[in-house]
């Protein structure tokens, strides 16, 4: 959920899947899916286990519990003691990590290929046998509060983004921060975490993505052996939650110790639901690339280099998500310029697209970059597993990734102009401004003069 994810991952999937069967897929009897992408370049493997549960599934009063449970997943089962999980991965020469997003919670190990089986055994064990110990919880919740202080409370941009999101969404659970409100963390109990685990950590709510120097038959057999015996259980009904239509611009400002003002303009935008029928998310992706895909793309060229109204400027749009989408324009004004100047300059660029569209050359350039990035993506096994997992988490089957790329290559200049006209709409706009405050409450030193 970092705002600085400047390249939406729709722009960088791989190219070569359609040509052959790889990746391979199976579904266990308990409902868990296993997706294997063979990549034999190096003797390593990546396992990721994804749960279709994230902060979007939380309720008021226990915000942050999805992420807290992610921390607790390392605190032991009857057969693997507290901290033992990390120790076993380390002993295998592996690296492990976990991440919680709005839409999913995922656990990952990168290991020498011969250690994959042990990793599958460990993940299977904690899928159904976690011990949510009250004493361990008491320590770990403090760690999570320190994490919140570090990532959000002392980070002005994060704080702005958190506040802004809470204003942009009023009904939809995306309004809550993934890390959770501090007060919810303070009152959270081990029982909250346990209830979360018992509800959502079942094989029918999970899928594994495994990439690397592996044979898919062998991986499927291991999946049967370790994940196969786990019992599935019916999940609670997840009711559709629709954000009411926004009917007017919303504004929020945050004061925090900082030097530079920050402006974020967030527009409600569509996300991809149907790979074949939808067209607008693809057009928004290509528009993002044309505005911000390289150093001489429109935003940087005009606002940073020519007008010098901005120190930095960018666009952020992620067209895949379980919930509603947003497209963000963001930047910081140059010295001597204001947030209002920057907003006006951004609006002028948007108006330019709305009125005159984009050139064929710009579109061709963005498509060339997209094609190359698909090849570059193949250099990372971790990246390939992430791409499959993230798309699946948003309900997009991995088989469709290559089709999404074809659709991106088919986007026309007319479609881009049309989405610019439709979605850069003030009634669906939320504006967030970071109002920087001096650290000591005193007036700032005079600015150092530079010639212009």
């Amino acid at each position, binding site marked *: 959920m970092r705002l600085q994810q400047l390249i939406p991952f729709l722009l960088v999937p791989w190219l070569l899947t359609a040509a052959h069967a790889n990746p391979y897929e199976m579904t266990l009897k308990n409902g868990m899916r296993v997706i294997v992408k063979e990549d034999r*370049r*190096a*003797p*390593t493997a990546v396992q990721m286990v994804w749960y279709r549960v994230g902060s979007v599934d939380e309720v008021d009063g226990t915000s942050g519990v999805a992420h807290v449970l992610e921390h607790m997943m*390392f605190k032991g089962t009857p057969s693997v003691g507290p*901290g033992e999980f*990390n*120790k076993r991965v*380390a*002993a*295998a*020469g*592996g*690296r492990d990590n976990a991440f919680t997003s709005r839409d999913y919670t995922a656990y990952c190990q990168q*290991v*020498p290929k011969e250690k994959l089986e042990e990793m599958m055994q460990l993940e299977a064990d904690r899928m159904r046998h976690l011990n949510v110990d009250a004493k361990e919880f*008491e*320590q770990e919740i403090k*760690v*999570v509060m*320190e*994490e919140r*202080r*570090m990532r959000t*409370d*002392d980070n002005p941009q994060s704080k702005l983004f958190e506040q802004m999101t809470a204003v942009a969404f009023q009904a939809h659970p995306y309004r809550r921060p993934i890390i959770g409100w501090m007060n919810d963390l303070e009152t959270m109990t081990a029982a909250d975490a346990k209830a979360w685990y018992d509800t959502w950590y079942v094989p029918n709510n999970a899928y594994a993505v495994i990439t690397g120097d592996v044979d898919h038959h062998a991986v499927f057999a291991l999946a049967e052996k370790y994940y196969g015996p786990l019992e599935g259980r019916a999940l609670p009904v997840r009711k559709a939650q629709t954000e009411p239509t926004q009917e007017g611009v919303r504004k929020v400002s945050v004061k925090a*110790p*900082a*030097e*530079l003002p920050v402006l974020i303009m967030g527009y409600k935008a569509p996300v991809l639901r149907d790979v074949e029928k939808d067209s607008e998310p693809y057009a928004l992706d290509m528009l993002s690339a044309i505005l911000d*895909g*390289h150093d*001489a*793309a429109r935003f940087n*060229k005009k606002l*940073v*280099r020519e007008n*010098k109204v901005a*120190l*930095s400027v960018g666009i952020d749009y992620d067209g895949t998500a379980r919930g509603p989408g947003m497209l963000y324009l963001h930047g*910081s004004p140059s*010295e001597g310029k204001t947030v209002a100047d920057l907003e006006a300059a951004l609006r002028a660029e948007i108006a330019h697209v709305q009125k005159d569209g984009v050139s064929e050359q710009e579109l*061709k*350039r963005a498509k*060339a*970059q*997209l*094609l*190359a990035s698909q*090849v*570059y993506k193949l*250099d*990372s096994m971790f990246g390939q597993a992430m791409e499959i997992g993230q798309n699946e988490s948003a309900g997009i089957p991995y088989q469709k990734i290559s089709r999404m790329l074809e659709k991106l290559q088919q986007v026309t200049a007319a479609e881009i102009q049309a989405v610019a006209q439709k979605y850069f709409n003030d009634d669906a706009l939320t504006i967030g401004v970071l109002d*920087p405050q001096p*650290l*000591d409450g005193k007036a700032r030193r005079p600015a*150092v*003069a*530079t*010639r212009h």
Partner: protein
Amino acid sequence: MKKLLTAVFTLLLAQAALAGVKIEHWVSPSGARVYFVESRVLPILDVQVDFAAGSMFDPAGKSSLAALTLSVLDLGAGKLDETAIAEQMADIGANLGGGADTDRASVYLRTLSSKDKREPALEILRTVLHQPLFDAAILEREKARTIAGLKEAMTRPDSIAGKAFWAAMYPNHPYGQQASPETVATLTRDDLARFHARYYTAANASITLVGDISRDEAAAIAESIVAGLPKGEAAKLPLPPPQPKGSLVKLAHPASQAHVYIGLPAIERGNPDFFPLLVGNYTLGGGGFVSRLMKEVRDKRGYAYSVFSHFAPLKQTGPFQIGLQTKRSQANDAIKVAREVLDGFVKDGPTEEELTAAKANLTGSFPLRLDSNKKLLDNAAVIGFYGLPLDYLDQYQGRIQAVTVNDIKQAFSRHVRPADLITVTVAAD
């Protein structure tokens, strides 16, 4: 596994099953050191050109000159303006980037390896390296952006702590010089042009190529890059940094968390003590969740989300560093725990069990260090730039296995003297 041959000498094949990366090395006719790993699986070519032109070569009073020189290189060169460079690279899907640290200035190109893509990309790379324009108006714009970035950094507790930590560790050495808005404001076009002429030279360069080309093609590409550079001479290093006395630097800040750094100048690249320190540090604070610092500071007490220790060997004595962030009211307690862990470790070293675990991870994870072209490039570039032995990767696991508890204790006692530790806190109560 590929055979381990190099142009210079034949490596021991005993560990071929563990490693298998063949780094070829030669000196180009024009005098630069070249390192090449052929990798044909993906149609990608990565080229990195490293110069001994990092911030340690900033003249006194001109901090940021190295960083600014590098960042302005591709903002106009030869007949191309900044827009043409970016657009032409984008047209072929190539990425041109780079960065400067204390030691190195690196220019990095990733391109598709087919001739119609790589040749124009390489042509731009050469133009950028050989004929940067250092346009005065663009320089002023970039100076203003740099100054704004520095001012913003000076409000961030982590940046404030990092700057204060390096300044305290290296009071009389370029590693301790901190860029400031004032020093950036004084930089001129002539400063950049002079710096470029002095340091962006064949004798001061190492070139690393990884990817889908032959050895002959690599040689031709490397030579075409070097031939356009002045011959020059290798950069002269300043005197090694003196060892400062231990001290405590305490800075005020309104943040909710204190940021803490503890450390001292410890070790340079190529020092044989690096392996005992690396293996020992895994147990102390390098091994993520299984390290002693993580167990004591995070797991047992919930003091911090992140706590680590590491050695950063540089051209000259680089730092040993412990870092953590904790609620400001408990900063002193957290520092006390971290110091107890460190002091105990320096005195007694790891247990045999911890040593075994450290070796298992550091040797077992070796394949993960090399499983992409990008990682191969990073490793080969470090070996090339720092003049590490070409068989460094092949020997890596053996060097780790050979480390004993006693080696670790001795190396720590030489390089991490508790009395000399510098502690910096920002926002601690």
